[in-house]
């Protein structure tokens, strides 16, 4: 069953444990980035594994594919030529442009790991969750941002 990363905004403390877990596992290249809202809040931004991924459409060498069963959008490091088309095509800006190894960095939901993405398990505040489509029925995108109180953290 397809599972997605969900971010609970109320819980995120901006410690970047998720980014550290990703960087440590992938030779210093983080596949999860952070958005900084006017210096007030940090938002982890990971690949949403879109239903109709623009990165896949933009890839000139078909290095990016989508697994219909799991919904995971993966990139083959062997085929990728590092043209950065996917990085420019991604509307969420979650594919990183620095091409250290001449390949673009793309979140694969840690498919090498049975227990799920490292960023989720490492999350020190429990803000990141890895839930099945059933659990997040209303939302089809890969990373959903949920909050009971909009920017609760900023309004004591």
């Amino acid at each position, binding site marked *: 069953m397809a599972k997605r990363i969900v971010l609970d905004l109320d819980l995120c403390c901006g*410690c970047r*444990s998720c980014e550290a877990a990703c960087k*440590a596992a992938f030779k210093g290249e983080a596949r999860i980035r952070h958005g900084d809202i006017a210096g007030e809040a940090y938002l982890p931004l990971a690949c949403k594994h879109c239903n109709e991924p623009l990165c896949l459409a933009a890839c000139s060498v078909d290095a990016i594919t989508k697994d219909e069963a799991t919904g995971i959008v*993966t990139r083959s490091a062997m085929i990728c030529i590092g043209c950065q088309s996917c990085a420019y095509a991604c509307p969420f800006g979650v594919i990183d442009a620095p091409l250290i190894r001449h390949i673009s960095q793309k979140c694969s939901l840690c498919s090498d790991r049975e227990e799920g993405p490292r960023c989720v398990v490492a999350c020190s505040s429990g803000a990141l969750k890895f839930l099945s489509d059933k659990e997040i029925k209303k939302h089809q995108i890969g990373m959903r941002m949920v909050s009971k109180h909009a920017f609760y*953290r900023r309004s*004591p």
Partner: protein
Amino acid sequence: MKKVDPAFTTVKKTVCPFCSFGCELGVVFDDFGVKGVEYIKDGSSGGRLCPRGSAAALYLNHPLRLSMPIKNGKVLDWTKLSKNLKNAFDKPASVAVTFDRNLTIEDYRSIIGFCKATGVENIASTYFEPEVLLREFFGKSFSVDDIGKARMVLVVGDPFNQTPMLSKALIEWKLRNRKNRLVVVDTMKTHTAAFASDFLKCRTDTEPLLLLGLAQENIAGVNVPETTGVSVSKIADISKDLKQSKDALILVCLSFAHTYDSMLLVEGIKRLSAYAGKQIIPFVEFPGFEGNQRFGTILDKIKKKKIKHLVNFGELFPFYYPQISKSLKTVNIFATSPIKHKDHTVLPVALNLEKQGTILTNRGDQGLSGTINPASGARMVSEILALVKKTEAGGRTVTPPAVTINLVERAKRIVARTKTPRKKKTLRLLGEKVSYNFLGLFEKEKLKINPLDAEVLGLKPTDAVFLKSKYGEVNCRIKLTTDIDQGIVVIPAETPAAKGLFEYEVVDNIINFIPTEVEIWRKG
């Protein structure tokens, strides 16, 4: 990505030794060595790990990991090194033995036992982080569940960035009941401060005075609200509520060179705890050990040429404090380190992760499994000591000379300092301790600067700048943020270059790193 067959990998469980929280983690090995970190779901932290824990594999596999002793950058064989060390200990009166972090309790006891056996009387701690002053509060075991029972928590510092493992309990506690009161004391708006019910934002360097004010201490000649910038009514309200709240807690994290007088800050925390009758819970990277002397005394003896050799056990000293190097020119230094440094004689030592032993954590003593073999060439502290003399590890510890704090005098110094204008074209540099920047393993430090200061200096967002103090210079990128006041800039003090910028004072023979004036200009 291809799934890794578990048959080809081994996970060795241990306790993370990089902060006092003591989370369980697994280190994954394959045929080629360390592969990464595994998150133990049934471990004490439920698999959650802060960036320091995730950095464990990077540190074990550091590209500069030292495998042979080196002297001024050149390889030295163990036999020659052993001879040099033995010669140094021929006259124990002229030797100082010091230690910083990356030591187990057993290592420390071995070092003290060794000093006794060899007749070395100059023993001191070289762990100069202000958090070491919190060691005395480690007596009572702490569980994050204690937060759930409280109605009020007073936090000094920024645990969300410094000790992220605390964040889940704090956030859930606060969200569960809006009446739960989280009070944060700091000089800048941090992630923790943004989440607080009450953020007591005080002027740079004035946290100690604010804490003394909360403890209702009357200091002759010091007007706390005026100096700190926190109103009388706010101080009175928090002070009263802290005293009346049942099971309230005081959580403390201290940063390198964030405050002018760390000793007074700790005194303020202690007095607030006594006044309110509430427990202090310290969060540190390493609780530190004590010598029979303070390092200031050792520096004096070096100056008078009474000490000729200094042997340091740990990983930071003297490499991470280049500003002290000038005072150490006349002394021959042997220092242990897991990674290469070009100065002095450096001995490859095992990381705590690679040891079997005990470390002090917030939950009491925790055992390190010793299942991870030390990196090639790295030796245990006991093996290094045995190069000079074989001694048995005993239950020995030593106590340093007591320090009496003159509260009024120190408080007045802070007041005087807040009134001293900055030099033209300079900004005041503060340090912060961000777990993501741990030893610079993930990211090069970024300098936080107020947009108005940046405009005056003609800097744009993400510009690369040179930052120069009396002691050194670094280049780094800037990050514009209104979280900090005009006139101050903030850097994570995690690398030798960043730590090396800060000025220090020796007060009561204790080294104290302080906010420092710096010049900044755009690179290129």
